[in-house]
């Protein structure tokens, strides 16, 4: 068997180069399809990933716990006491990377010159630092040091709008837990940079100060949590749900259906593109192989008449398609990987960034080279191509030699 293989393999290889142009063209087609599939796939995945990252960073974390009713009517009326023992135990499970309680309230912020509607977040500085972007995003001034710190962090865009500077005072007006209007004057101790929507609307207070201001005692509005890995989110969410049956536990995909839809779209686009480009490759390949077989029918007939077994003939033709597809697929993968890696510093969408943000992604995309995905794609292309070449191979092996040889021209 091995001997036959070593006899036939060089023949198959040489046969490919009897029609050099054709072989090269077919290889280029296959390589192009593989490369485009990889590049597009990687960009789409980075798009979905960036939509996910932005959602997580935009204070959603991997999921949130609220009192029932809060999601429909996000006010202080639906606050919750500090976590129960069962919930605390679940939150401290090793599969949860970080969690933090927050106070969330709608408010108006007023400077000497302007006023704007905002969302106040009362945060626990240490816990929040492991969970969200704020602690690392302070561009001017400082972050909070402890839950009982004082002062306020404002976004850069909001500071512009209110025409205030570091050290100025602003007045926050909100409805407190009893339903009365509460006001607090606070000093701007830090200015942060982040997603424009957050910079405009999110205002951070240390949690104790927020609780006092809003008359919440030790109650909070939400607990945000982060799983160790993205794949664990649903199991972690289920675990928390079981630990706190009377609270409303939701993962990011339930909190932000928009992001989930974006990720679905990118996945679908990948699947469709993969299918279309593979269909084209298969079409080109089968056509090429069929022709390669037809134009050599006489030769095959002769070979068979000289004693070559149909099975060997089948093997020869299958080997030809292997020799054609495997190098082509691999070189396509190399080209694809090179293109992807050349963008690994990030693809800046420039002025289209505004559009990208509108569709959930960020200004700069980071396409990732995913070895496993590439491996699967290559294996699928090679496998299916070889499958597709069975038809022409069988046709060639089946022909009756005499019939073919006697016909001068086919």
């Amino acid at each position, binding site marked *: 068997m091995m001997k036959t293989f070593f006899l036939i393999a060089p023949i198959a290889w040489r046969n490919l180069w009897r*029609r050099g142009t*054709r072989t090269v*063209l*077919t290889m*280029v*087609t296959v390589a*192009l*399809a593989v490369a*485009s599939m990889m590049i*597009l796939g990687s960009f789409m995945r980075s798009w979905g990933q960036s939509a996910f990252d932005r959602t997580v960073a935009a204070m959603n974390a991997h999921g949130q716990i609220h009192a029932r009713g809060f999601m*429909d*009517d*996000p*006010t202080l009326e639906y606050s919750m006491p500090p976590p129960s023992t069962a919930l605390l135990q679940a939150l401290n499970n090793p599969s949860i990377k970080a969690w933090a309680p927050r106070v969330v309230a*709608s408010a*108006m912020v*007023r400077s*000497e*010159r*302007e*006023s*704007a*509607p*905002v969302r106040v977040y009362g945060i626990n500085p240490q816990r929040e630092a492991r969970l969200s972007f704020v602690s690392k995003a302070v561009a001017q001034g400082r972050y909070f040091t402890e839950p009982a710190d004082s002062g306020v962090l404002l976004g850069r865009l909001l500071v*512009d*709008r209110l025409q205030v500077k570091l050290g100025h005072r602003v007045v926050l*007006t*909100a*409805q407190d837990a009893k*339903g009365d*209007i509460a006001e607090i004057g606070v000093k701007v101790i830090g200015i942060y940079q982040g997603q424009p929507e957050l910079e405009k609307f999110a205002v951070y207070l240390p949690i104790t100060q927020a609780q006092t201001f809003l008359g919440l005692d030790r109650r909070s509005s939400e607990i945000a949590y982060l799983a160790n890995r993205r794949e664990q989110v649903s199991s972690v969410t289920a675990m928390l749900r079981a630990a706190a049956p009377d609270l409303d536990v939701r993962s990011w995909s339930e909190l932000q*259906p*928009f992001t*989930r*839809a*974006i990720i*679905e*779209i990118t996945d679908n686009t990948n699947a469709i*593109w993969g299918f*279309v*480009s593979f269909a*084209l*490759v298969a*079409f*080109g390949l089968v*056509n*090429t192989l*069929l*022709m390669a077989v037809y*134009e050599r029918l*006489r030769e095959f007939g002769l070979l068979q008449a000289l004693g070559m077994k149909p099975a060997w003939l089948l093997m020869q033709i299958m080997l030809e398609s292997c020799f054609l597809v495997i190098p082509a697929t691999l070189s396509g993968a190399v080209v694809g990987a090179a293109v992807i890696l050349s963008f690994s510093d990030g693809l800046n969408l420039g*002025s*289209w*960034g*505004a*559009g*990208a*943000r*509108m*569709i959930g992604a960020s200004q700069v995309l980071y396409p990732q080279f995913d070895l496993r995905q590439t491996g699967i794609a290559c294996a699928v292309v090679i496998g299916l191509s070889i499958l597709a070449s069975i038809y022409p191979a069988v046709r060639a092996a089946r022909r009756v030699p005499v019939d073919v040889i006697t016909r001068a021209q086919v």
Partner: protein
Amino acid sequence: MILSLAWRNLWRRRRRTIASLTAIALTCVIVIFLPALQSGSYGAMIRSANGLLDGYAQIQRRDFLDKPAMRLSFSVNKTVSSAIAELPAGVQVVPRDISYALLSSRKRSLGAQVMGVNAELENRVSTIPGRIISGQYLHADNHIVLGDALARNLQVNLGETVDMLGMARDGSLAVDVLTVAGIFRTGMRELDRQLVQIKLARFDQTFAMQGQRHALVIGSNTDAALLHQAVTTLERSLSGTGLVVHDWKKLQAGVYYSIQLDMVSGIFMYLILIVIVTASLLNNMMMSAMERTREFGMMMALGVKPGLLGRIVWTEIVLMSGLGTLLGMLLGSAITLWYSVNGLHFESVQAVFEQFGMSSTLYPELTPLTLLAGPAVVAGSLILAGLAPVYRLFHLQIIAAMRSV
């Protein structure tokens, strides 16, 4: 004669020709249907985004768009009103004032964007007056209409009062008590949760505007060319006044750039598709010429000029590409037309469409551009690629050719 020879040559390999035709036709269907779908969804996006609230363009103070501050207002003086009077008939211009205030019901207080509008004219530039789901649009002086999420969060019903607390243009406190006349729903979360409208005169009084305006909105429900012209005219006559005309591409930068982004990535994908198809068909063409090397050699030996042979081969390719493209255009336009009447429903990605205030049913738009551009590129690149086998013909060695199998 060339034509009929080429035609017959095509059908010597019936199966291959049919396979090639199918590939060309399917590619054409893809490059007709998908761009039509894109273009249809862009149209819907722009129409709904502009028609909802922002209009086709707005006249504002230069910095107002980035920093909507109370003091960035302007008076509609003689220059401005004569500039508006010059606009072509059918272009609607409606004034607006904008501020932010704290709204309080008996139980709740929430921040909101307060918009002063001319209640009689507003429906010419915005669909919000038509989106009232309970009650009525503004008709008395002390009326207010709210987005449904805001009304729900404030826990107010029709006929109840809300207190408004904001800052007037002169820095004094702006306080007012208003009666809820109606509740609207746009489907866009930001608006439904944040926006309220009151009458312009009331706004003027409460916020001490002294007749000044924050924006003049130019409605989008006229011919696009007319609107474009109106913007150009206004830009000219308002230059030097400190006022600018922002068209929808500025007002809805997110919508504009996401369309651009989608368009560019779409074109990129179609180009790759066409390159792959062309490369794989070029293979077919080369083969169909090369397998006849012996025949060509014979014909040349008999005195046929390579030019004539070349023309025959090329005609074959032109015929095949033309026929495939034509088939594709027929099929593609039939599919597109069918969906442009019946609509294409996207259930799973509804949230994305809602973000743009659109329904999740899309209607592809069959325009001469979407019908012709794609197939033209396909046919063009195939016909160009067809020159390769012709080129080979001119370099054929007669003797060697006749000997080849």
